């Protein structure tokens, strides 16, 4: 068994190493800019290089553990981590994860019958449907907010608080105050959201995609605190995942180290982008990346339906569906990262160019003002 597992670790030459570093770099940019999303790109990317699914997931979770540690440390220094909120969500999310694992295991065991259905097709279909439904809702809601705020002439452009407002009105005691996030949330709603977040993270495997919007839209947490708290949460979930997978012998340390080479540079650039790019722009880019990922998943669904004999088309077509699905996944990741990099580069140049204070002296009795000095570096 162990001899076989070692054989599943790919040979890494310079070309493979560079590709893994690039995957890490793109994942890091996305992760730093939108607060989550590295996993959705890096895991399938590694699988594309011939890494086994479980080893890709395990190496990525281990990578996420260290990354979350560095990221949450930085966020904590900026006062963006609500440890109390993270503790509550962590406890309830673990229950949600257990529910997700139980459902996935049941569906996985149920596949692979004598009629030709591939093992795991049921679980894959279920995961894809949940992924497409939830992330579409998140992306559409973000886009609608942006369009609405433009229509209202509301320059503030903060996230919609409709769900948070509705839940606040329900007023279900006990209500817990979270001082860093500066918000009050009913314990019941917290538990419900924690379980739902854990369930979705366990089902889809991308916790940040759910955790960050849930904190912003459901709890009314400021965006920066939601991102910082989610990273703090990911630190513990990542540590647990890394420990478990390493015990099973699934973690390829070499892949994890190569991912770091790219991702930690990418994260710095992504986080820098958040500081210098308009918040509205961040949300447009995030929602478009998510929508492309959703589309990539939707394209793969007919394959699972065919494997479950719910749809009838030639098996050769699977290749085209899979390649199209991969194309959209990579288009979202690479396209998103390029757009972010371009914007970051533009803002970086602008920031270096513009350093000025204009001094204007008011002359009594004159309606016009006269600029007497403008400094520029």
């Amino acid at each position, binding site marked *: 068994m162990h001899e076989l597992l070692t054989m599943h670790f790919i040979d890494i030459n310079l070309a493979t190493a560079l590709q893994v570093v690039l995957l890490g770099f793109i994942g890091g940019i996305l992760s730093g800019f939108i607060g989550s999303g590295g996993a959705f790109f890096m895991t399938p990317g590694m699988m594309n290089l011939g890494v086994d699914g479980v080893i890709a997931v395990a190496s990525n979770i281990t990578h996420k553990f260290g990354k979350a540690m560095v990221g949450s440390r930085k966020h904590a220094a900026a006062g963006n981590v609500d440890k109390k909120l993270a503790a509550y969500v962590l406890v309830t999310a673990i229950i949600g994860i257990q529910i997700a694992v139980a459902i996935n295991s049941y569906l996985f065991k149920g596949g692979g019958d004598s009629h030709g259905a591939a093992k795991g097709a049921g679980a894959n279909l279920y995961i894809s449907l949940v992924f497409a439904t939830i992330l579409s809702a998140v992306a559409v809601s973000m886009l609608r907010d942006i369009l609405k705020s433009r229509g209202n002439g509301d320059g503030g452009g903060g996230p919609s608080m409709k769900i948070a407002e509705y839940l606040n009105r329900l007023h279900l005691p006990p209500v817990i105050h979270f001082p860093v996030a500066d918000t009050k949330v009913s314990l019941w709603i917290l538990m419900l959201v924690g379980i739902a977040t854990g369930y979705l993270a366990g089902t889809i495997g991308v916790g940040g995609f759910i955790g960050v919007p849930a904190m912003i839209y459901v709890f009314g947490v400021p*965006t920066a605190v939601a991102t910082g708290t989610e990273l703090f949460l990911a630190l513990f979930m990542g540590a647990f995942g*890394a420990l478990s997978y390493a015990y099973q012998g699934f973690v390829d340390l070499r892949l994890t180290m190569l991912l770091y080479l790219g991702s930690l540079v990418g994260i*710095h650039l992504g986080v820098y982008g958040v500081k210098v790019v308009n918040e509205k722009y961040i949300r447009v880019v995030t929602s478009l990346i998510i929508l492309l990922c959703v589309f990539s998943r939707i394209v793969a669904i007919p394959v699972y339906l065919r494997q479950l004999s719910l749809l009838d088309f030639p098996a050769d077509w699977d290749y085209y569906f899979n390649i199209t699905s991969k194309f959209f996944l990579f288009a979202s990741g690479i396209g998103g990262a390029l757009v972010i990099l371009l914007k970051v580069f533009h803002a970086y140049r602008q920031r270096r160019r513009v350093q000025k204070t204009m001094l204007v002296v008011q002359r009594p009795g004159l309606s016009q003002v006269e600029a007497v000095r403008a400094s520029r*570096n």
Partner: protein
Amino acid sequence: MAIVMISSLYQSGREELAQALARKTNWPVVSREDLVDQARVAGIKVGRLELSIIKSPGMHEKLAREKELYLAFLTNALCEKARQGDFIYHGRAGHLLLPGISHRLRVGLTAPQEVRIKRAAQMLHMTPEKAENYLLQLDEDVGRWIHTIHRVDKSDLNQFDVFFNLENIGLSNAAGIVCAMAELPDFQPTPASMKMLDDLHLSSQAKLRLALDERTQRADLQVQADSGVVTVTYPPHDEALGRDIPLVLADLSGCREIQCTMAETNILWVQERFEPKSDNFQQILQLAQRWGAAVELLRLVPPGELQFDPEDPGTVADSGFSRPECPVPYDGGVEDDGPATAEDDGGLRLTEEELVNRGRCGGRHTICGGTDKILEQVQGNGRYALVVIGDMFLSKGHSTRTRRTRELALSIRDRLKAPVITADELKARFLFGKRQAVTLVGFLALLVLMFGVVFTHQEAVKNFLSGPFHQHYKWVASVFMIFFIPLIAYLYGTVTGLALKIINID
């Protein structure tokens, strides 16, 4: 000139106390309700703001601009009243308005709950049960309002000069005490408090103009005023603002100079004495240029030390607890154009001048006191990317100075919700110097070694992670991973962070 600001919850007697005081003194009364009506007429959506805060108190980001506009309107109206003479204001958070004006008398009031219920039931034609529920909900909403608008807890008694419980004292007697207190020297205008009033008035006027003018109303601006100089910082993505802001503020009464700085954010620098040639200045300027930030100077004069003369009955009675007062001569906003004045401003103007030359000026203030005074002064100024506590408590020894500076930094961090550091941490945290260069080289060497070992011994690594060795010592691999991975992440994270600092990306 007396300014009495009375605060209480609904139906707790604030209006009656204001009227009783007015009968004794003939001072005019202004209520929050009057000002809110005027604000509505001026086009400020106070109802929308109230509803949003009550429904979802977490939405600070979206409400920031409306909140600023509302506060600027109230501040402007109250400053105008104060310039006309004595007045009494009553409202739900009157004690938190006109921040920093030391001669205002902040009066708090509470009444027994059963009295409030009875009064509310009569006023609103409700049953007592309904009135009780109504009051409970209303008190909670007011608490949210105060927390969101002023960032303090409604039950924080530190914000008051005097607090009455109407269960223990009658309204008339309370009015008598307030009247007598308002006559005390502590609540009389001083040159410093009058200057503060002028600055507050000018900044609120400027904020209002900018918020209501269609050329500037959508921009995220930070506005300060000091001695007739209005400083506005505006975001770089709208360069036209640099031209529009002076036009909007043209002929603003009391404004003799406008400083417009293009900046993405602000750094607040708190220090006792400023010096443009100091290391602190160079480091903060370097950081501001890298972040595209404006530097706001806040000169903090610590309150006088506990110096009392046993021979002097006055100082013995005060035992050093007298109200701190800044040594600022009041010139009515008119400054001498002459070359050098004898006035010691702690190097503030020279430093500001240097910041203007470098294009990073974000305004200046002088205050006297501790954490509360700093917060009063800067809480309405939006979010800061960083607060730097520079050289403080200069009259103290090194150890005491270090300890008290750190204590000050901690208490500001807790309440301002912004990153706060001391100047000696600045270099290590944000700048690149010799120490950082040594760290970069050392960590890089360690990383090269680690990567070299792993990638030149791939078969051994595979064996350790999931081969025969792993089969016998599963926990060894797991525990190794838990320590090794964070170490790699920390080393490489530090290296990338420092390398990006060199090219000014952080």
